[in-house]
């Protein structure tokens, strides 16, 4: 091949490459995953005495509340500082509607669960969680949350035995015993009024030992959660009854350091059929 032909070929190749590069540069190229454009900015005020077993406090946002599953919540990547009275926290989010935002407490000693909501902002008129929207026009939502350490300072205990009248169904996701400040009436109440919950029931009978915050405990119940059910789709199997008037719900008042024993519950599988 002659030198001229070679030069021509290389020139054409270079021209083609240049045109291709220009085309690429001119196109609005889809870059896949992008940084999150929205932001929730929260001023957090802590009140009360922090539990000694505090591992961390996370800012959590729920696109839907109550969430179907715990992994449908946006978490702050790191714990917020909790060694002072007031801190500022930010969470990057996609644009969209968010039903609720809250602070979630993590213990050093045990796994976190649904009872560990340290603070959630509730609209007092609707009794619903406060929602917010992030849009290109309003990419940042600023708010405040007051966190009372007392909500997770479980300084009392409830002990008892749950007895089931048969084996666990095969489609069981979890069976739990939970203590509520107020008897829940709808799905949101199952989270809002929850004082403590133990999801580890796997034996019959099961002896439980629930750490709770002191004060009134109005409802202690055993729940069944079906495989793939929503997080708050609890089915009641039984509840603690007043020992003197078994037709009534049993209630307990606990002072700091109190241990309530003999809180026994009969769980009846026929209630979920």
């Amino acid at each position, binding site marked *: *091949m*002659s030198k001229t*032909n*070679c030069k*021509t*070929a290389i020139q*054409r*190749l270079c021209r083609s490459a240049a045109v291709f590069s220009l085309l*690429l540069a001119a196109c609005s*190229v*889809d*870059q*896949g*995953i*992008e*940084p*999150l454009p929205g932001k929730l900015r929260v001023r957090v005020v802590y009140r009360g005495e922090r539990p000694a077993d505090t591992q961390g406090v996370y800012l959590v946002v729920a*696109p839907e509340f109550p969430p179907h*599953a*715990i*992994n*449908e*919540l*946006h978490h702050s*990547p*790191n714990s917020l500082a909790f060694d002072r009275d007031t801190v500022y926290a930010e969470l*990057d989010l*996609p644009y969209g509607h968010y039903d609720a935002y809250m602070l979630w407490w993590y213990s050093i000693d045990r*796994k*976190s*669960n649904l009872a560990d909501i340290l603070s959630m902002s509730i609209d007092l008129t609707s009794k619903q969680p406060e929602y917010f929207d992030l849009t290109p026009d309003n990419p940042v939502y600023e708010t405040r949350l007051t966190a009372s350490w007392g909500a997770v300072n479980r300084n009392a205990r409830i002990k008892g035995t749950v007895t089931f009248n048969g084996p666990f169904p095969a489609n069981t*996701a*979890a069976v739990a015993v939970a203590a509520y400040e107020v008897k829940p009436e709808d799905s949101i109440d199952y989270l809002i009024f929850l004082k403590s919950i133990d*999801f*580890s029931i796997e034996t019959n009978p099961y002896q439980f030992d629930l750490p709770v915050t002191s004060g009134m405990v109005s409802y202690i119940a055993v729940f069944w*959660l079906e495989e*793939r059910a929503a*997080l708050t789709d609890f089915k009641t199997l039984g509840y603690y009854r007043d020992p003197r008037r078994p037709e009534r719900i049993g209630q307990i008042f606990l002072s700091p350091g109190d241990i309530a024993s003999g809180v026994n519950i009969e769980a009846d599988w026929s209630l979920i059929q």
Partner: protein
Amino acid sequence: MKPKILFFLLFLIQMLTAYPAVALQGTISGQVIDADTRESLPGANIQIIGTLRGASADAEGRFTIDRIPPGVYSVRISMIGFRSQTKEKISVQPDRTVELTVALKQTPIEFDPIVVLAGKMQQRLDQAPVSLSVVTSAEIQRRNPMDLQEALEAAPGVHFIGSQINIRGSTGFTFGAGNKVLLLMDGVPVYASDTGEFNWDMLPPLDVEQIEVLKGAGSTLWGSSALGGVVNIITKDPSSTGKLMFSTSIGRYDEPAFGEWQWTDPDRLHYTRADISYSRRFKSLGLRLSAGRFVTTGYTELGDAQKTNLTGKVDYRFSGGIKLTTHVAYSHIDRGFFVQWLGQNDPYQVDPKNLDNNAKTHQISAYSKLAIPISARFAVNLRASFVRTLMGNQFGQGAGFNPAIGQGFEVQTDWIPVTGHTLTAGVQVQLDAGSTKYFGDHKGYFIGPYLQDEWKLGEQVRLTAGVRYDRYQLINGQKEDLFSPRLGVNWQPWSTTTFRASVGSGFRAATIVERFLELSVMNFKVIANPELKSESSWAYDLGFRQYITPNWNIDISLFDNEYWEMVEAHLDLIRGQIQFRNIPRATIRGLEATSNMSTEINWVGRNWVPALQLSLTAMQHEDRQWQEPLPYRPPVLGSVKASVKTGALQVEIDYRYASKIEAVKVYPINDRVAMKFLDGRISYYWRDYSVQLGVYNILQYNYAPMESNLMPMRHFTLGLKGEL
């Protein structure tokens, strides 16, 4: 040995060899040369079709195959990077030598390579009854991969989630424990015996001759783990003349696609790979030694890694064609352990409290194979293998692993009792053991006899029928009996057209890790499930291959893989637990189409060789119990590989696409996008040297195959290869 038994064995061998020792036999010899340069082609492969006889060309391209029973044969001559040829109607006469001179033409695409995965013996790809893909040595060299995973990821129907391979969506993502694909090295299993996972760094890419990918179940011949597919990495043989090969690459990462993602000085993010290999044959003794090292800073925090490979392959050819081959591969990996990003606005960083996470792995895998060609119609192959994997620190929790040891032994016989039938029979034994403080000491073994017949009906039809029985016994635990039948047909009504159909079954016993691991990982606790059952599958495959021109083919296949008791990781989000559980029924079905084209044109006085390879895999996958998509499986995969070569210059563009994954397990609310990667390479060849500039992820596309794990941003590689 009692005289009666001895007599029986002698009688059996006499029967099997079919031809009496006194029969006069002929010889085929010749030379293989390059059609363009007329230079000899050392290492070319010569195979007498329908027999078990073959040879490799020596330093002068010459070969000799003796002790051939008289008859008329077809002889196939192949060589990596060259278009294969079949010489028909070669008549072998007693005490005569047939002389052949074969000129092979270079091709950028290996249209019809020889494969062994389909039938546990050498056969042409277009004569297999099942769907297969092949990544050739030439393609591996062109792609200049840093490891075997990079070498494989452009194969049609193959997709990686992290380091877990998916063949037509087989595996999904199982958190690094249990792979529904079997990995073989030269036909010998090389998975870690506790996790069932692969070490894609066990061999330097320079040592690889060819990678074969069997799509669908293959347990009839290959046993456990061949549930959703089989990958066979064929290593290079010692070369006939002394050859020193080297390959070195340096690369650096570009800045992140978005300024706010920049987490360190981009100039410090780089990688280096260097491999060297020496190969030589001393008469009957062949030797190949390789060493490789890969060092990277990574592109993320905890992305740093140092990897070292040492491999050796020795073969010795005894008289009578008996060949003993031993291969040993050692790899050491010391790397940071990136589990998940800090957040979508800090995707290259990790939670500071995890900055000490690292992982170390030592692996040594070795096998010995003895091939005994008793006659042109009967051969015995013995294989023994050993894989020792030792994992060090994981999740910063300190070493708690003892070596996991897998040992295997196999006897395989190939017998052509009458012309047209090839019987493959054997028995495989595999013992897997794992021991850590996280799951205690456990051992399990398989014993699996198998039998397959390939029946050639005339020149057009090949029927394959096989069956395997496996007894799986977990020592002091459960045992299972598994049957794996298979039926296949390959019909070539014309030389340009092939139809294939197969139905076969596969199984995989749950690994020791899947059954027994108890470990806390971040906020999750892994719970043991000793009752986990083996998963099994039936694979249905219907395929069609058509040569439109000699240099342009299309291949279309419809597949349906039905799974029973599929093992998947189950996340119990309420209790913060992970447990491996069986999904009672699952289905993955779809269509795969590939097309390969290459041609030669003259333009502006130069010779140009353009080539184009297209592939598309469309799948529907479903958990039949919940009527939901299976997690971590993109429904559509596609790739375009285009190249043009003129003189010493070659330019290539690769585009890989995977549609958005429909379901994930850990963070379903995280953004998910399709995969769109465009790579480009330009290479210049000069004598036995080549220099290559590669740009990967040209479009700076940000893709996370699993949640919170971004693939690399754009990066540049400069590579230099050569032979001395």
